[in-house]
């Protein structure tokens, strides 16, 4: 059974979002996503400063099994990326909601978060 933390927001392309105290939003891939991918061996992240549109491609995850695109779940500017994934991409497998986060953005419109899936809706989406 996949772990789906109640305090996060989700999108159907299997990214999670966490609203931070400073108004920025941290993005990663869900536990369900990393289970589907299997052992992750490379993560390609967006550039800090990049302006992303919602659903725009923001990176690539390569596992032993497959390559998968990572999308910006909402529009915004990239404030930081998780450089630890460069040397230890397996963090996205072992701690998808913690040390395995992907990037942080400043939302173009903070209200965009409200329309995303909550944990219950995401659980229903993946049949969990």
């Amino acid at each position: 059974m996949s772990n789906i933390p109640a305090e996060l927001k989700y999108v159907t392309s299997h990214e999670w979002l966490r609203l931070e105290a400073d108004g920025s939003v941290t993005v990663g891939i869900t536990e369900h996503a990393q289970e589907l991918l299997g052992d992750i061996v490379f993560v390609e992240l967006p550039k800090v400063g990049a302006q992303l549109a919602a659903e725009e491609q923001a990176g690539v995850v390569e596992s032993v099994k497959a390559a998968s695109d990572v999308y910006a779940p909402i529009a915004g500017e990239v404030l930081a990326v998780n450089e630890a994934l460069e040397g230890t991409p397996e963090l996205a497998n072992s701690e998808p909601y913690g040390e395995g986060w992907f990037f942080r953005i400043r939302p173009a419109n903070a209200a965009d978060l409200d329309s995303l899936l909550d944990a219950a809706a995401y659980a229903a989406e993946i049949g969990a």
Partner: protein
Amino acid sequence: MSAARRTPLYEEHLAAGAKMVDFAGWEMPIHYGSQLKEHNTVRTGAGVFDVSHMTVVDITGADAKAWLQKLIANDVAKLGFTGKALYSGMLNEDGGVVDDLIVYLADDGYRMVVNAGTTDKDLAWMTRQAEGFAVTLTPRKDLAMLAVQGPAAVERVCAARPQWADAIRSLKVFQGLPFDAWFVARTGYTGEDGVEIMLPAGDAAAFFRELLALGVEPIGLGARDTLRLEAGMNLYGHDMDETVSPLEAGMGWTLAMKDGRDFIGRQALEAKLAAGVAMRQVGLVLEGRGVLREGQRVVVEGVGEGVITSGTFSPTLGHSIAIARVPFATGESATVDLRGTLTPVRVVKLPFVRGGKKVFE
């Protein structure tokens, strides 16, 4: 579509925490937690694979040898003593590969091991080709098969069966011996030392548990694929099939053509050799980021195009490798269409890894 079939080890896989997937109509373990960890276990210690989905066929009858000399492209006359093994392609009249297989010389005939996904087609083809020969084909559905592989594999098997240990240790590569109803051969699909064991289905679960108790780790089909790819070994249906010539799939060494033996596909091979072989099998190495995948286009500037037939991330090397079919005149470099970007790769001779070490230049 009938329900997926289960091997005698199905319950053992679940007990060991396997993630099960459909493979050629069988419910098989893809991994037991981490494919990478399992891969490294086989390169450094000992792992056990359930390969009971593969099919063992015993071949008996007065014409067994003559029939096999017609059926397969390698020559069973090379098998000098009981238990000796031979790798071969079984070709169609057009010189395409119906399947690849191992055949052992037995006391009363031969024993063949064919792929799971091709079993029905193989048996139909073999039965058709047996017309007019005094030969009996007996698929051994009563047998399970385990592959125990890795530098510590042989010693772990010897520890589990001390009464057979001296005989097992004495086996050279591509040799096997019967032990009561079991058959143990020094063969495998990983590029490591190890054995493959055919045993009565009813003995399989207990032996699997014995091996785990001796520190042998269960290994899924995911790691089986990355291990064989590092070892430069073909996977049927990917690196070759009925539309691909063995001459263009790295199987030239298995074609015993020096005498005039009339095996199925020989005429097509001779015609191809006379006309000139257009493609050859090579290894590709991507030392930067990214993973080469099956089906990606290989572009060789000024020469032509080829295709990746198997690609993966190599856990042993820490970067991506692939097996590809490329124009014969390809040199030491090429590019691969990696998700829209032509990315430079090195062209090398297979294999990539043997005995846990990088072997290509």
